[in-house]
């Protein structure tokens, strides 16, 4: 089979069994890879409603066909599991080298269930897998772990693993690879921790069969030619996603003061945050660029703080914070010091905590404290006044160490509010998930995605928000045709995620290149209509996981502030209140679901590949 190894590794950590599984070839056709194929596999092999930290709970590390194909920006892999935050479907993706490496080691994905009695890791070398002892690695941060592993293995490898955050099962725990890349969201790191699994380590150089290598090479060439003069290339190369920071702050996208006010109302200006954005951040701190596998963008960068109290360790790889982290550790808490942002971000990377959830939780703590809801005593003597970077770093440390109040805050803002029994009015969460630094009041499409994506709270899912950016203001807040745009863009996103492409770039690729690449790699045709059917199938598969868990539309909640209730009093989104119900209705109408979120039977049949869902939702005896 072109584009795939055709083999999945199934591991049971309770029994220590490893098994090579050949899933039906049709599943590859129907679900391509990544979260979509992951959802199909978990739907098959993981029982419904099982304890997220129990023996039956499964976690998957899964690649896509473009991983290892050398198609540009096709290096992203995904982790999939149930989420400990909202007990529903979770997938998160990450760049770096792990996606291609897992295939070069002989597998399309690794699926793990059971709980090991002691810490272990899974080692795969060229098609042979084993469970190895990880006692000595348990408790290590990312840099420590990678260094120890490199020394012990003495060969080139790539690993996907958890830090202490995951080991201690924080629902904010991410899954790391390549020191600081992370499949951040939804707490899959905690699920891996609950299994006493440090991670999956791959090595090997098995080739991947490509259907039309010459075609793919020519396509890459034409994309390179296209990108040569494209402004995106230059921007991404120099600044990565940090380039978006100042423009977003200006447009009202960023999470100013935990999303409570507009920048204008704080009395601060964009200039006050200049050092956090491009180009200053990179000018001052950047040491070198890095990139995911097969990407000409090189949007990642390492930084160093050379002096002062936040001086970084020169021997450590310190990542330049991405836009979301800049937003939360910056204006989210009114901090103007880039070194604080770098430090908080690096702590999260080290300990394996999601920077968005950690940043969002900090934003909530800051607002609670400043409004007298949380006291100095409750925060172990720390006084997080707006803009106090030192307090932010100290709180982040406590969260990383799960020490004192950090133990509570490491559960995320929602659970912390429940624990303290207050501060719920300051939460900016969807189904308990903190939100990235993209304000739905600026691009209303986000609220539909935040609320109703099968993995809620994501800025990299869904689609209407992508279309919003191309719309005039009048159209953005006009809900008449959102369903169409929402489904259309969601389908593209599903395809990008499943195939292993990068959301930053794939939408910009010229013409039909993302379809053509699929053909060159897998040998299968793909056109616009196929993509739409695929997208609906992929979304529905992830959605069906939630339906089977008993989750219904009303279980997917957002906090009022997110919808502009009450609206902001100033700034570019002044006075905006969103109608998230209508946006959801429109989306469900357009994708072919009842308003309660149940897919229509004929829609499932026509979409195809969803027989498992049909059997559960419309059991034969009830089918009319």
């Amino acid at each position, binding site marked *: 089979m072109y584009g795939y190894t055709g083999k999945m590794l199934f591991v049971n950590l309770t029994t220590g069994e490893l098994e090579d599984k050949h899933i039906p070839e049709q599943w590859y056709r129907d679900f391509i890879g990544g979260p979509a194929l992951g959802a199909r596999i978990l739907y098959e092999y993981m029982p419904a409603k099982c304890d997220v930290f129990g023996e039956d709970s499964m976690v998957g590390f899964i690649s896509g066909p473009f991983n290892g194909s050398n198609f540009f920006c096709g290096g992203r892999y995904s982790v999939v599991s149930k989420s400990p935050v909202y007990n529903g479907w979770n997938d998160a993706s990450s760049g770096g080298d792990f996606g291609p490496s897992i295939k070069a080691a002989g597998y399309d994905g690794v699926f793990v269930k059971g709980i090991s009695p002691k810490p272990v890791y899974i080692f795969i070398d060229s098609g042979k897998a084993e469970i190895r002892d990880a006692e000595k690695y348990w408790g290590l941060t990312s840099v420590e772990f990678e260094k120890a592993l490199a020394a012990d293995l003495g060969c080139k490898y790539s690993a996907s693993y958890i830090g202490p955050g995951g080991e201690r099962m924080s629902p904010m725990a991410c899954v790391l690879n390549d020191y600081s890349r992370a499949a951040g969201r939804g707490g899959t790191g905690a699920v891996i921790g609950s299994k006493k699994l440090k991670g999956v380590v791959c090595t090997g150089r098995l080739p991947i069969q490509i259907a039309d290598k010459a075609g793919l090479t020519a396509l890459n060439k034409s994309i390179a030619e296209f990108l040569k003069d494209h402004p995106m290339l230059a921007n991404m190369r120099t600044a990565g996603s940090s380039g978006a920071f100042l423009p977003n702050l200006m447009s009202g996208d960023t999470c100013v003061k935990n999303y409570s006010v507009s920048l204008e109302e704080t009395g601060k200006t964009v200039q006050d945050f200049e050092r956090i954005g491009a180009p200053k951040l990179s000018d001052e701190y950047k040491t070198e660029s890095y990139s995911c596998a097969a990407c000409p963008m090189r949007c990642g960068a390492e930084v160093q703080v050379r002096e002062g109290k936040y001086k970084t360790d020169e021997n450590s790889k310190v990542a330049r914070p991405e836009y979301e982290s800049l937003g939360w550790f910056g204006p989210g808490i009114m901090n103007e010091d880039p070194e604080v942002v770098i430090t908080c971000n690096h702590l999260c990377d080290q300990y394996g905590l999601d920077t968005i959830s950690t940043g969002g939780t900090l934003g909530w703590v800051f607002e609670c404290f400043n409004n007298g809801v949380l006291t100095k005593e409750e925060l172990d003597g720390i006084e997080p006044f707006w803009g106090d970077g030192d307090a932010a770093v100290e709180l982040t440390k406590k969260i990383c160490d799960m020490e004192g109040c950090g133990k509570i805050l490491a559960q995320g803002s929602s659970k912390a509010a429940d624990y303290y029994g207050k501060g719920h009015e300051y939460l900016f969460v969807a189904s308990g998930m903190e939100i990235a630094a993209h304000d739905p009041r600026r691009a209303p499409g986000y609220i539909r995605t935040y609320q109703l994506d099968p993995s809620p709270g994501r800025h990299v899912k869904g689609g209407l928000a992508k279309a919003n950016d191309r719309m*005039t203001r009048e159209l953005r807040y006009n*809900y*008449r*045709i959102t369903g*169409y745009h929402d489904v*259309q863009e969601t389908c593209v996103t599903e395809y990008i995620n499943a195939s292993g492409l990068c959301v930053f770039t794939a939408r910009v690729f010229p013409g039909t290149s993302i379809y053509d690449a699929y053909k060159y790699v897998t040998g299968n045709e793909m056109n616009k209509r196929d993509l*739409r059917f695929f997208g609906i199938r992929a979304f529905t598969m992830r959605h069906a996981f939630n339906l089977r868990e008993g989750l219904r539309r009303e279980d997917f909640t957002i906090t009022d502030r997110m919808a502009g209730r009450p609206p902001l009093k100033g700034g570019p989104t002044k006075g905006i209140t969103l109608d998230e119900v209508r946006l959801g209705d429109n989306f469900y109408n357009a994708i072919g679901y009842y308003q309660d979120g149940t897919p*229509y039977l004929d829609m499932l049949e*026509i979409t195809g590949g969803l027989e498992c869902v049909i059997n559960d939702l419309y059991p034969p005896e009830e089918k009319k």
Partner: protein
Amino acid sequence: MNGRYSRNMPALSAEECAVLGQKHVCVVGCGGLGGFLIEILARIGVGAMTVVDGDVFDVTNLNRQLLCEETLLGTKKAEAAAARVSKINSDVKIKAVTEFLTMENGSQLLEDCDLVIDALDNIDSRRILAAVCAKKDLFLVHGAIGGWFAQITVVAPGSGVLDKLYPPKAQVPNKGNPSFTPAVCASIQATEAVKLLCGKPSTLLDKLLLIDLRTLEFTKINL
């Protein structure tokens, strides 16, 4: 005269048929109403049609939208309309616009049109269409349906009739969309369109026709 149009006569005169053949109609919306409208206008022999819709077909369209076929799910409605027209009547110059009408693209889309037909499915889009028609000084044949009911009127450019039909806070509960209602509504819209194009007086200029298919009561109200 072609045999194709012989049965239009004598309901329409030969001159009228010839006039129709010179006219350019824009149908905005290719769903329930649009599908029937486009069919009728293509068969009777208008000279040119621009059909506008950015949407694609989904399963819920199958029950009533003439253009929607099982094999076309997921494809653009406007493209299906163009394909259908070229199969029915190759005399008709057909242009498919696979975008939604907006304030920005509206004027350009309606360039060179003689008449516009409102076959949209939501109030906001209808308001935009009426505004563009006012700007371009074009008559608009409005039709809307809901459950067993339909309404049709002819809107003179800038008369503001749609604003009266749809007060600012108008709420439109979902009454379903059975297949017979769009056919009735579209048929009457097409009738008024043909009258206008042939230079006959329209019966529904500044009048609202309300149809209740449960009782088969047709009520005309002066606007």
